Structure formats: C-alpha cells, structure tokens
C-alpha cells in the first residue's frame, strides 16, 4: 500500500531515528511512504497558545497537500497526528471555522482521505500477522511497557480513538515481534512535554515518576510513538535510566533492518544492550 507520509519537524532533528526506523519498517513490510510535498510545521503545542486559527491553518495546509496527492495520510508522531486531526475535525464540524480555513487557503476540503497514526496502521485487519511474518529475530525475553501519552488518544472524538483509557495497539505490535508487553497503569498519562523547555524541572518530576513506574512494572524499556514523549522520557527520568524506544525501532530490530546501529546512537540512554 502507498501512504502519504507526514514526518513533522522533528524528523530531521530530535526524532531522526523515528523517521528512519519508520521508513525502514514500512519498506520491509512492502508499503511505500511518500513524504508529502513541501509540508509545513503542524504548529506543535505552541500555535494554539498564540492563536486558534493559526493552530488550525498550519495542519490544514498539510491536509490539503495530502488531499491533492489522494492517499491516506499517516503521521507517526503523535503530536503531529493530533494537530492534523484537529484540523480535520474543524473541517468535519463545518461552520465558520471551516469556512475561514477554506477562504484563507483557497481550497475546499473534500473529506476523501483518511488520517492515520501508527496505532491506526496497527489496528488494520491482518496488520499483526503481516508484522509477525517478517520477524527475523524474535525479541524474546525483552520486557517493555507501551506509553501512548496524550496526543494519540485524546480527545477521543478528535483522534478517533475507541479505547482511550486502555489502548493496546502498541502492546500488540510489540508482542507480534516477540517481546513481552507488560501491564502498567500509566500508559495514557501525560509526560509534560508542553513545559519541557520552560519548566524542565516540572517535566522531570513527571518523567521520573513514569520511569519509576515502568521499572516497577518490570520493564526493560519503554516503547513510544511520539517524538516529544521519546525526547522527554529519554532525557528526564532522574531515578531510572530505561531506554525509550520508538515502536518502529523495536520492530526494525526484530526485522533486522539495515542501519539500525545509527538509530541507537541517537538515544541518550543507549538501547543496544537490550538486543544482545
């Protein structure tokens, strides 16, 4: 299948390994990711603080590019995904806001394409079998907890989640490549990324607790699907130092994708020890 791909700004910076591993895994699965032409920033957590229409206009432009390209749009970074879905919801709700977007961007939203997160990709029928079939090195013995954070599951109406209190797609993906996904109670709690730059200390308090709880659950690593969650948890756990892996990195390891040594080098806590 061919998918339009929205990498987001961190693709070339803090979440470089997320993009690389996503591309590698999709290629291995026989799917093609086509980066959408000339995309712009989704607005992060900041645009909405400054101006509501700006926060919708930024992702709306990306939606319109994807519409022209005519394929389902996948945004693996949870933050980007959430913003794109907000623009989509604004269009679907219609009314003044949708009209203003149309006017400002000079193009109609026709509602013909879908917007997916990685979770949506994993929730497709047969997705797990597809992944399991390509495993070269099962990750047996590796114990992980999945961490979804906020943006992938909330608000449910906006992101289209059906089980926002206890999602399981990341766990299923981890199990499909032979790892053991452990139960824990903090998978949809917030990592505090919004305050990461301005109040690093507050953010560290939150991440430290998450690290401790993951360790208490018996995890060797935390699996995520968001550039901000990864950066935050990797940088700011103070009492633990669990590696924080993108789900695509975990799958990429099981697939034995090329170039994954370079992914591990980007982590502050080196995860390569997990795979020996």
């Amino acid at each position: 299948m061919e998918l339009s791909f929205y990498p987001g700004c961190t693709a070339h910076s803090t979440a470089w390994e997320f993009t690389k591993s996503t591309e590698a895994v999709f290629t291995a699965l026989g799917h093609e990711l086509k980066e959408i032409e000339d995309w712009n920033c989704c607005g992060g957590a900041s645009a909405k603080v400054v101006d509501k229409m700006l926060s919708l206009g930024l992702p709306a432009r990306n939606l319109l590019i994807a519409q022209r390209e005519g394929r389902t749009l996948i945004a693996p970074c949870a933050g980007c995904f959430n913003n794109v879905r907000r623009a989509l919801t604004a269009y679907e709700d219609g009314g003044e806001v949708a009209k203003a977007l149309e006017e400002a961007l000079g193009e109609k939203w026709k509602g013909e394409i879908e917007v997916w997160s990685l979770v949506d990709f994993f929730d497709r029928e047969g997705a797990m079998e597809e992944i399991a079939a390509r495993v070269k090195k099962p990750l047996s013995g590796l114990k992980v907890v999945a961490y979804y954070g906020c943006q992938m599951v909330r608000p449910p109406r906006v992101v289209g989640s059906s089980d926002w209190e206890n999602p399981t797609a990341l766990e299923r993906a981890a199990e499909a490549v032979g790892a053991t996904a452990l139960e824990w109670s903090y998978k949809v709690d917030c990592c505090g990324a919004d305050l990461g730059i301005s109040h690093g200390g507050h953010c560290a308090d939150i991440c430290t607790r998450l690290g401790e709880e993951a360790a208490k659950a018996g995890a060797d690593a935390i699996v995520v699907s968001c550039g901000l969650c990864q950066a935050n948890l990797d940088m700011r756990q103070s009492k633990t130092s669990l590696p924080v892996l993108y789900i695509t990195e975990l799958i990429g390891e099981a697939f034995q994708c090329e170039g994954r040594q370079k992914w591990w080098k980007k982590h502050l806590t080196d995860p390569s020890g997990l795979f020996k």
Partner: protein
Amino acid sequence: MNAFAKEISERSGQDLSRCYQCGKCSAGCPSVEWFDWPNHGVIRKIQLGAKDELLKSHAIWMCVGCETCGTRCPNDIYISQLMDALRNMALEEGVKPAEPAVMTFHQAFTGSVSRFGRVHELSMLMEYKLKSKDYFSDLGAGMKLFAKGKIPFMLPKVKGKGELDTFFKNKGKG
C-alpha cells in the same frame, strides 16, 4: 452569563453552564499543583467573570494540554480549550504573563514557524534563551542532544510558506 464568560465560551466552543463542580478534572490533572486554583476553580472563576485574575494567573500557562480533564468530564468541557482561549486573550490584550518563560517559548516556536514554515530548533532555542534570560537551565540536556546531532544547523525551507501568511497576519485578532 457575564460578557467575559460568554466570550470565553464562544472562543473555546465549551458550554460552561454544564459544569456542576464535581472536580473530576482536577482529580486527574498532571499540572494542577502549579495552578492558582484547581481546574474546576478555573471554570468557577470564568463563570464569576474574574477576567483580570485569570489573565494574570499561572494556571492558564501551566496547563499542559493533555486533555485528560475534558476526556473524562461528565459534561464534555475541555478545559484546555478554555486555557487556550484565555491565553489568546491575554496575548491580545498585552497582559504581563505570570509565567513569562512559557509564553516566550510558545512565541519563539511560532516565530520560527512563521520564518521558515517549519521549526528550526537551534535558532528557536537560542531565541528562547535570550528572551527568557534563562541561559543555563537544561543546558546539559541540550548539549547532549546537540552532541547526538539532534539539533541541526541547516535551515528548513517550505516553498509554499506564503500560503500561511493570512494566519500569521491575522493572529492575535481574536
């Protein structure tokens, strides 16, 4: 409803009259301890028309937008939307923020997007540091990321950036 509550309600799309002060929002909030009043108190303050207090409050800047409150609210009130409306209003009216660092960060971020179409972390962080005069916090972490090659020099470029001009031009006009 007072004029202020009405305006917040319209900007945020939230029906404030539904709140019955159960406090479920505050019970699940990750940042309530840094607020002047708990989440349900913020709603109460809006209902009471306490505009000055709210625009000058820490709460509006310390909300992390995790949407836990709204998702679990029995009455479908998304407080993050209220917080955004209050922040938009504070910026429009030039109110001195109680948490200047938070505001400076968000402004640096959107500034970067307005210049390049995408965020350029290095210049954005430098702008933030200079404006917030917070030179040393998180320096270690930043340096580590820098050393990992995660904060590139190269400037991003979006050819159709002009298509977004309307939004930047109109920002802060309510």
